[in-house]
């Protein structure tokens, strides 16, 4: 676990919010943290180098630009979970892939350019990946997406 000082924590809290689309978008965040813009940049760069910030930019609504996605729950033999996960990771369309403590033990998201491509990818997975069961759980309604953590 990374040890961060109070200033880094404040920076992360600010950057999780929505920054203004303005000529100097970082000015207010730096002010709130209580440091100069220059220090703000060097700290953010370090947080990126340390891998704490994954990316920093515009978040796009993938559905609004036409992408199609789904969540898949898969049941695989316990002893094969690592091998299956590795095989799934090789699909470019799979963006998130987790082992979860459940009878359905692999959960992954698949995202493609459109519904047709997504359907084809799911067919390929069904065919190529050895599994016991596979549930396709597409979104019907979106209530919220706002990833903001309680940074202590």
């Amino acid at each position: 676990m990374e040890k961060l000082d109070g200033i880094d924590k404040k920076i992360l809290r600010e950057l999780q919010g929505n920054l203004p689309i303005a000529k100097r978008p970082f000015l207010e965040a730096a002010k709130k943290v209580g440091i100069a813009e220059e220090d703000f940049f060097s700290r953010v760069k370090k947080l990126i180098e340390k891998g704490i910030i994954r990316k920093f930019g515009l978040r796009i609504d993938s559905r609004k630009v036409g992408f199609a996605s789904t969540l898949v729950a898969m049941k695989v033999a316990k002893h094969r979970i690592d091998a299956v996960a590795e095989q799934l990771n090789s699909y470019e369309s799979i963006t998130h892939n987790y082992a979860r403590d459940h009878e359905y033990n692999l959960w992954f998201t698949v995202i493609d350019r459109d519904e047709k491509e997504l359907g084809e990818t799911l067919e390929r997975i069904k065919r190529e990946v050895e599994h016991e069961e596979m549930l396709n759980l597409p979104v019907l309604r979106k209530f919220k997406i706002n990833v903001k953590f309680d940074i202590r």
Partner: protein
Amino acid sequence: MDETDREILKILQDDIPLVSRPFLEVAKKFEISEEEVIRRIKKMMSEGIVRRFSASIRHRKLGITANPLVAWKVPERRVEEVGEKLASFEEVTHCYERAIIPGKWEYNVYTMIHGYDRDDVKKTAEKLSDAIGIKDYELLYSSKEFKKTYKRYG
């Protein structure tokens, strides 16, 4: 959306230039004005194409290691109300209704919650359960992250 909008998204989806006036840098690249870049992004924001301008954090590195997907079994007529209610909690980062597979998998509402340990999130889940009056739910803890990337636009 035109070609310039798409190019702006392609560049700014990953890493914003860490300089005082990042949109000026982008503007120079496309030989348009800084004002125009700002106007275009604001327009895409009002259309919902751009959700936010923010950083995404590898929360596991900060000790936020309990990250269950919580699957709720909600009666069809209550989905809208329950979904809105769950979404209103700060601890909930994602909330969706998803398709069911009748007879096999009938959980229809999903939330992601995050915490520093399992006790922490268990309490959150109980709080949510009380708030919506639904007892039928599953905490699906992730025991391993095999992959986490994102689909690049463009």
